[in-house]
């Protein structure tokens, strides 16, 4: 993206805020108003719902959202290793394209690749992470929130301002990791709050790994360095309790080396990837009357990607990709409460996505532009022990290109329904069942990528069926609170878009040839144990079973075989102990073996792995309500060598230490 333009845009949008700022400064008495994001009771939702709160996030050895969501059940992260390595999420084996990412209530778009790197979201400014098939707490939502098989919703802490505070953070660690961060939040009067968060992250990433060549000394990951800058600004203005506007500006810049897979006898890479993202978003929520509410959202995103292979042996002596992506998004939603039990909502969204190629291949490139129209109707019926929600989403996609042929026009109706039932008022048991049909449109890369894309692609459909039980009890023998959830599901992916080699391994095209059937179990156990002296103990366990089979081609050798990189069993365990000012947590991740390809031969075997991490945190509260914390994260404490993706070795033992100082207005 053109930096100058971005800057101008930034100035322009902040200019809009000035009157608000001035107005707000008249109120001098800061009044603390608690509108904290309530943590949702995960045992009562009609669709499976998981969340990690700020406190939980602090106890997990996580640097980015990608690390944290590994502790959810039903989630697989494809992790190519290191801080700079790509990390994508697959929920219930549906693939990365089926998970929508929502940032502060508004979807993050990527029409080009559709697989968002979760490593890009540092946890520094993240307050809560929630994962669901949709956001279950309200039906007043943008239509686009219903358009993914799963939604990972991230809430930033600068978007939630309670009082004036400032946080300074400095972290450092293995492999040249250096990470200063700063945030400042201010509440001016009762109505206006704003905050800024800025972070810099750098790492050499040159961790050592056990050499694949037997008997050779350890090797180091090379060209794995990364430098990222992130800045966010949030402002909110509360006209009154039921009328609020919010604004957010976000900038991200990352420059990294791509170490690639370890190639035996030639372990060299000097490929680079730069990414620059800017977005601004605004939302306005108002209760028009006791019964009706409105929500308006708007967002503008610019995304620039630059890829360079400086030793490509063509005549220019390098291979470059430059892509500019832009998205303009507006949404309006209205909800009406007919009776205490029955409410309904209507939402209409429009977004326009554009992709422009500006490298040597620009001349023949399609430069596609897509208009997306989404309309959604949702109803919610909540009787005493019964909750029923249903929605139907209407999607219309139209495309234009500068060169070549366009992709198909789409016009699809996608229904979903969910029911939860509470056995009796005193029963700890809830039952739930849901069905959702959704699709993902072919991405611009699928359709138009030079020499690979195929404009004849159809969308990829997903049907999800789920039944679940949950148990929630406040006090048991030694337990203060216990939540158990168990969900069994069946998913079908049809017309899965797959890259298929056409002429040889290095000439691919995209085809709608895949079909996958997934039978799975997700289980979660959350327990808060009774206080023992000054010791508080919490534990969390999540388990995932995946039977995900390739049903594409009965004549193929991989027919009915488990799809690549999908373990049958995976689990995460977290135990947290608090004693006075000290917090200790112990986190374990486990995965059974997988295969790198559909062929279940030993050659394709990717071994089972487990990691064990420890986090220590020492907190000191001063009488001025300031808070100092020292953290130490010890990762992979038993120094195990493992890989999530074959020939992408993961770091062995590594550590991060940090000092965090928070100054609160008393």
């Amino acid at each position, binding site marked *: 993206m053109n930096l100058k333009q971005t800057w101008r845009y930034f100035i322009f949008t902040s200019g809009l805020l000035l009157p608000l700022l001035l107005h707000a400064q008249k109120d001098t008495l800061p009044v603390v108003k608690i509108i904290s994001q309530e943590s949702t009771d995960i045992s009562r939702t009609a669709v499976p719902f998981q969340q990690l709160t700020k406190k939980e996030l602090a106890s997990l050895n996580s640097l980015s959202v990608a690390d944290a969501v590994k502790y959810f059940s039903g989630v697989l992260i494809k992790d190519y290793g290191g801080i700079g390595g790509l990390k994508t999420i697959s929920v219930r084996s549906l693939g990365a394209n089926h998970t929508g990412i929502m940032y502060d209530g508004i979807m993050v778009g990527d029409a080009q690749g559709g697989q968002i790197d979760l490593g890009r979201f540092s946890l520094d400014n993240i307050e809560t992470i929630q994962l669901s098939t949709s956001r279950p707490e309200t039906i007043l939502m943008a239509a686009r929130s219903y358009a993914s098989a799963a939604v990972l919703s991230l809430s930033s802490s600068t978007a939630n301002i309670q009082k004036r505070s400032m946080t300074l953070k400095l972290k450092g660690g293995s492999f040249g990791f250096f990470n200063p961060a700063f945030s400042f939040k201010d509440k001016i009067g009762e109505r206006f709050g704003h905050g800024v968060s800025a972070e810099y992250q750098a790492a050499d990433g040159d961790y050592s790994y056990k050499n*694949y*060549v*037997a*008997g050779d000394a350890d090797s180091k990951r090379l060209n794995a360095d990364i430098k990222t800058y992130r800045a966010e600004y949030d402002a909110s203005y509360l006209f009154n309790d039921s009328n609020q506007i919010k604004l957010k500006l976000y900038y991200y810049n990352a420059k990294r080396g791509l170490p690639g*897979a*370890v*190639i*035996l*006898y*030639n372990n*060299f890479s*000097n490929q680079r990837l730069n990414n620059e993202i800017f977005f601004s978003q605004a939302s306005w929520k108002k209760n028009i009357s006791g019964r009706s509410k409105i929500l308006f959202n708007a967002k503008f995103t610019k995304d620039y990607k630059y890829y360079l292979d400086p*030793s*490509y*042996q*063509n*005549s220019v002596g390098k291979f470059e*990709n430059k892509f500019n992506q832009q998205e303009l998004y507006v949404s309006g939603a209205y909800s009406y409460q007919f009776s205490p039990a029955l409410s309904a909502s209507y939402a209409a969204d429009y977004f326009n996505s554009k992709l422009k190629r500006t490298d040597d291949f620009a001349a*023949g490139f399609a430069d596609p532009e897509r208009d997306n129209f989404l309309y959604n109707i949702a109803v919610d019926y909540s009787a005493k022990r019964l909750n029923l929600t249903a929605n139907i989403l209407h999607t219309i996609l139209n495309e234009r290109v500068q060169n070549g042929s366009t992709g198909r026009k789409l016009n699809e109706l996608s229904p979903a329904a969910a029911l939860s039932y509470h056995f009796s008022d005193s029963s700890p048991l809830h039952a739930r069942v849901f069905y959702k049909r959704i699709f993902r449109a072919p991405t611009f890369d699928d359709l138009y*990528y*030079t*020499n*690979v*894309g*195929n404009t004849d692609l159809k969308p990829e459909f997903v049907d999800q069926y789920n039944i679940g039980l949950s148990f929630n009890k406040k006090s048991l023998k030694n337990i203060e609170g216990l939540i158990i959830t168990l969900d069994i599901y069946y998913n079908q992916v049809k017309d899965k878009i797959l890259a*298929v*080699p*056409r*002429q*040889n*391994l*290095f*000439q691919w*095209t995209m085809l709608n040839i895949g079909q996958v059937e997934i039978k799975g179990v997700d289980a979660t156990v959350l327990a808060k144990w009774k206080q023992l002296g000054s010791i508080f103990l919490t534990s969390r366990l999540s388990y995932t079973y995946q039977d995900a089979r390739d049903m594409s081609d009965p004549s*193929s*050798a*991989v027919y009915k075989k488990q799809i690549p990189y999908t373990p049958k069993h995976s689990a995460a365990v977290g135990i947290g102990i608090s004693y006075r000012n000290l917090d200790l947590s112990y986190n374990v991740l486990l995965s059974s073996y997988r295969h*790198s*390809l*559909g*062929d279940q*031969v*030993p*050659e*394709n075997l990717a071994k089972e792995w487990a990691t064990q991490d420890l986090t220590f945190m020492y907190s000191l509260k001063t009488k001025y309500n300031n808070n100092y914390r020292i953290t130490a994260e010890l990762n992979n404490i038993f120094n195990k060598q493992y890989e999530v993706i*074959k*020939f992408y070795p993961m770091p062995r033992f590594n550590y991060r230490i940090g000092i965090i100082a928070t100054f609160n207005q008393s």
Partner: protein
Amino acid sequence: MKKNLYKWLLPAVLLMQACSKDDVPVNPVTPPAKGLYAISEGGSTPNSAKLGFYNLGSSTFTGDYFVQQNPSETALGSTSNDAIIYGGKLYIVMNISSEVLVLNAYTGALIKRINFGTTPNFKFPRYAVGTRGKVYVSAYDNTVNIIDTSALTLGAAIPVGKDPEGLAVQGNYLYVANSGGLDYPNVDSTVSVIDLNTNAEIKKIKVGYNPNKVEVASNGDVYVSAYGVGFPTPPAPIIPASVSVINSTSNTLKTTLGGAYQYSHVRIFGNIAYFFNNYGGAGTARVYNTDTNADIRAEFITDGTTITTPYGINIDEQNGDVYIMDAKDYVTAGAVTCFDKNGKKKFTFSVAPGVSPNKVLFNR
């Protein structure tokens, strides 16, 4: 987006032996093969190249013969693009690992890994041919490299055209296809002629676009098959695959076969040429007489056997059996099928865990 690794040239080494004296095909006394080396270049998982061995006596296949015979070795490496047997040694050209492995051709024991370049200047070798006590290897740094077969060291590099692929020897000349594939779709369309007495390029001959394989017929004609430009998503204009014929006496283009001969791959044994496309298409291979310049059969296979993705053809010169490598979907294990010269299937075997087999060589 990755390297345009246009595959597979038959080494023509058997042919070279057959045609070494004044271009008159002779039939040296060749013992029957004891077994077959099957070279699989590997799939999308890195380092999955495989050298397998099929025992013709017991009809058993060893998937990773290289590691079996060399237990201290981890793996062959990444992308075995080509292999030849020359002077009792087996040379395996590893494209992505950028080296040539030299093995004892009888035992499979590793003799040496010859590095093709060092960090960061890797050469990425492609195809090999042996002649005059040397092995010539084309490489993507726009050179043909000479391996001294006794010292097993890398000698001089001969500059040629862009991204050289297949090569073949006829008389005093070495012919190298300059693909320009890494500049796709702005590909090259020449063959470099190297004088083997001076080891220098003497001229370039214009052939079809994106040339790929070079083979010599018993009458001395040099056949060059070329991919053309335009698949799978065509940039305009589409240039179809083609076969060009070079007169090796005058080193000029003799003819380009007609529009019916849109083939990216050619393999010649004596005066019989096999034309095929390694991305499937209609039929498996067309059989053509290079003396009469006419088709022998439009389809080589006569018993209805199907080959999904013909990825390489080799002929056992001792009995005339034809081996066709099937890369299937390039992801799952490939297979090798043996036919008699009349196109009837004799036997088939899977090269599992090998993916994308491109060649068999004969252990006699």
